[in-house]
C-alpha cells in the first residue's frame, strides 16, 4: 500500500501505483484517493502549486495533486501513457485545460486547472446556492438506434422501469429509469439514431 511522506503540500500521499511526480493531497493521508475514490470536497486549502485534476467518467475522479518537481524515486517502470490536448468543450471553466491521457490502454479525458482557482469557484457556487436536485436526464448509454419507446410524457415510473429499447451494434438493450418520477420529456421516437450521451428521456 501507499508510502506516506511529507511533501510541499503538507500531508501528502505518494502511492507506488501513481505515475511519476504524482502527489495526491487528501483531507487525511489515508490513501483512499489513490484507490480511485472521488474526493470532491477538500477540507484543506490547496497549496499554490496544487492542480485540480478531474478525470471524467461515470463517477468523476476529482483530486488536488501537487506535482513533484523532481521525484526522488522514478516513475513506475512499465507504465505506458500519452498526453494530448483536447479542444475546449461547453461549460469548461475558464483557465482550465482538457487533455486526453492514455495509460495502459485506458483512455481518459481529464480537466486540469490550478487548485486555488477551482476552490474559489466552488466557494462562489456554494454562496450562490447549490444545484437543485430533481430532474434526471436519461442519456443513451451507447450509440445505436431506438427500436421502442415504452413511456409517454406524464407517465409515472418506478425505479428500474423500462423507458426505451436501444439497438446497438448487435443487441437490443433496455434503458431503465434510475429513479422513480414522472416523465417530463421524451426526446426520441422509434427508429431514431442516437449517439452516446444523447438525451432520451427526462424524469422529473
Amino acid at each position, binding site marked *: 500500500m501507499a508510502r506516506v511522506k511529507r511533501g510541499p503540500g503538507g500531508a501528502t500521499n505518494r502511492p507506488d501505483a501513481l505515475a*511519476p511526480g504524482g502527489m*495526491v493531497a487528501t483531507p487525511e493521508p489515508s490513501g483512499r484517493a489513490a484507490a480511485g475514490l472521488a474526493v470532491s470536497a477538500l477540507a484543506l486549502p490547496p497549496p499554490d502549486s496544487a492542480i485540480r485534476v478531474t478525470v471524467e*467518467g461515470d463517477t468523476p475522479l476529482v483530486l488536488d*495533486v501537487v506535482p513533484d*518537481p523532481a521525484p526522488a524515486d522514478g516513475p513506475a517502470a512499465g507504465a505506458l501513457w500519452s498526453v494530448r490536448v483536447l479542444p475546449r*468543450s461547453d461549460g469548461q471553466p475558464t483557465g482550465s*485545460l482538457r487533455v486526453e*491521457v492514455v495509460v495502459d*490502454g485506458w483512455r481518459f479525458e481529464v480537466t486540469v486547472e490550478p487548485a486555488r482557482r477551482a476552490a474559489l469557484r466552488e466557494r462562489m457556487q456554494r454562496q450562490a446556492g447549490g444545484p437543485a436536485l430533481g430532474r434526471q436526464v436519461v442519456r443513451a448509454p*451507447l450509440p445505436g438506434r431506438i427500436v421502442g419507446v415504452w413511456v409517454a410524457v406524464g407517465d409515472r415510473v418506478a425505479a428500474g422501469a423500462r423507458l426505451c429499447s436501444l439497438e446497438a451494434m448487435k443487441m437490443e438493450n433496455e434503458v431503465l429509469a434510475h429513479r422513480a418520477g414522472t416523465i417530463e420529456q421524451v426526446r426520441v421516437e422509434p427508429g431514431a439514431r442516437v449517439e452516446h450521451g444523447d438525451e432520451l428521456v427526462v424524469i422529473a
Partner: protein
Amino acid sequence: MKPPFRRVLVANRGEIAVRVIRACHELGCEAVGVYSDADVRAPHVRAADVAVRIGPPPAAESYLRIDAILAAARQTAAEAIHPGYGFLSERAAFARACAEAGIAFVGPSPETLAGLGDKLAARRAARAAGVPVVPGTLEPAPVEDLEAAASVLPEADRVGWPLMVKASAGGGGRGMRRVDEAGELPAALLAASREAAAAFGDGSVYLERYVQGARHVEVQLLGDAEGEIVALGERDCSLQRRHQKLVEEAPAPGLTAPRRRELHRLAVSVARAFGLRNAATAEFLLAPDGSFWFLEVNTRLQVEHGVTELVSGLDLVHEQLRIAAGESLSRRVRAAAAHAARPERHAIEVRISAEDPGREFAPVSGRITRWREPGGPGVRVDAGVEEGSVVGTDYDPLLAKLLVVAEDRPGALARLRRALDEFEVAGLQTTLPFHRWVAAEPAFAAAVLSTSFVPDRWRAAQLRAAAAARAAAIAATWTAATEFGRRGAEAWSGRPPDDVGPRRDPAADGSASSDERWVRVARREAVERWPA
C-alpha cells in the same frame, strides 16, 4: 505457380479486406476493392489495385448490396469474388448470383450455404451423421405473440434450464439470449426473433441447453470440388462476452492427440453431410466432463483463422482461392491435416476493437490520433485502420487483430504481453486494457477456460479506477511541466515523432530533465472528440 485468377474482387472492408487483398497480391492476382462513402480513405481501398464505390455508409445500402457488388465485379472484369466474413459471406443468394454471373464465389456452394446457414437443419443433419448435438429443439419455436411463445415451455423444461434462445439464421451472437427461468422465456423468444429478423431477414429461433462451464472449440475445415474434406486443427475461443469472441488460440489447450483426432473427425463428418467445398469452421462445446457437443458450422473464413495459419504454416486465403479456381487440396494442405492432432506451435489472437471495456464493451466512435503496431519475431497484426482513421458506428467495431506465435503456450503468452506493451492507440478507447489484463491473468496462463471466464473474472471498475488515479497524476505532472500547455507543448510537438507519446520509462537517473522523463506529447491539433 500460375495465379488462380487474373482479378479478384474483395467484397468486404476493414482488416479482412486488407488481409484478402494481400493474399491476392501474393498469388499474382489483381485485387478489386469496394467501398462505401464512409471508407473512401480506408486502408483497404488503398491496398486494392482498383476500387469501386458501392453506396452510402449504411451496410444495407453498400456492403450488403448484391447488385452493386456484382456490378462492380462486371465493371472491373473480376473473375472471382472473395466475401471475407460477415456481410454477404454466408448468403446463399449471393453465391448463386455470382454463379449466374459467371463469377467464381470464393466459398462453399449455394446449397451448402443454405443448408448449413439454417442452424436447425445443421443440427438435424449432424445428429443424423452420428455427431452429438447440444440438447435442444430441432424445429423453430412459435413467436407470433407471447401466448404462442409460452407454448414451448414444456419443451423448454425437457431441454433443461438455463437455456439459450438462438436464431436459426444466426451468427456472431445476434438473435441469441441466455434464459435462466421459465418466466423470461416468452419475452426472450420474441426479442431474439425480432433481432434475428432485423439482422438476417429470418426470425426463426430455437432452444438449446446452456452447458455450464463449457469451452468453445472449433475446427478449421477445407474441402475441394472432388469431395475431399480435411480438418486443419482446432481453436479455443472460450473467452467471449455476450457471445462475442475476444481472444482465440490454437491449438485448444489440454487436449491429447487422440481427443484432437476425435474432434477433427466429428467436424469432418458434419461437413461431409453438406458436401462442403472451400473453407468452413465447425463449432463445438467442450463440456467440463470432456465431451464434445456440436453447435453449428460457419461457412466462411473466420475472424480468427490466423491462429490456425500460424500453427499450420498454411495461408488459408491462398488455399481458398486455389480451391475456388478448381484445384484439389494441395500436398501442403494434406500434410498439415496429417499433423493437425500434433501441433508444434501455439498461437494466440486478441481482437482490438473500438469498444470501451470499462463500459460493458460499448462501441465507441472517434478519430484515431495515434496508432503504433507492435512488431518483431512471432508477431502479426492484421489491421483495417491507421493513424487518422475515423471510426464510426456503421460497421463492426473490430479495428485490428494482434496475433502471436511461439513454440509453446507460455512462450506465446510472454510474446503477447510484450506485443501488447508495444501497441499504442490514442484518440478513442479500445479493448487493449482488457487484453493486457487477460495476458497477465493467472487463470488464463493456467488455461482454466470456459465461456464464463470473462463474466466471472473481468472486474473493469477496479482496473479502470487504478488507471484513473495514475492518469490524474500524469495529467498534473504534464500540466506543471508545460504550465498548462503554454510552455514546451510546441517544443515537444516539434520532436521527432518517435519521441512523442508513451514509452517505457527508463530508471530515474536524476540527470534527465523531468520533462524528458515523464512527459510525452502535446500536439494541439484539434481532434474529433467522442461524446463524453
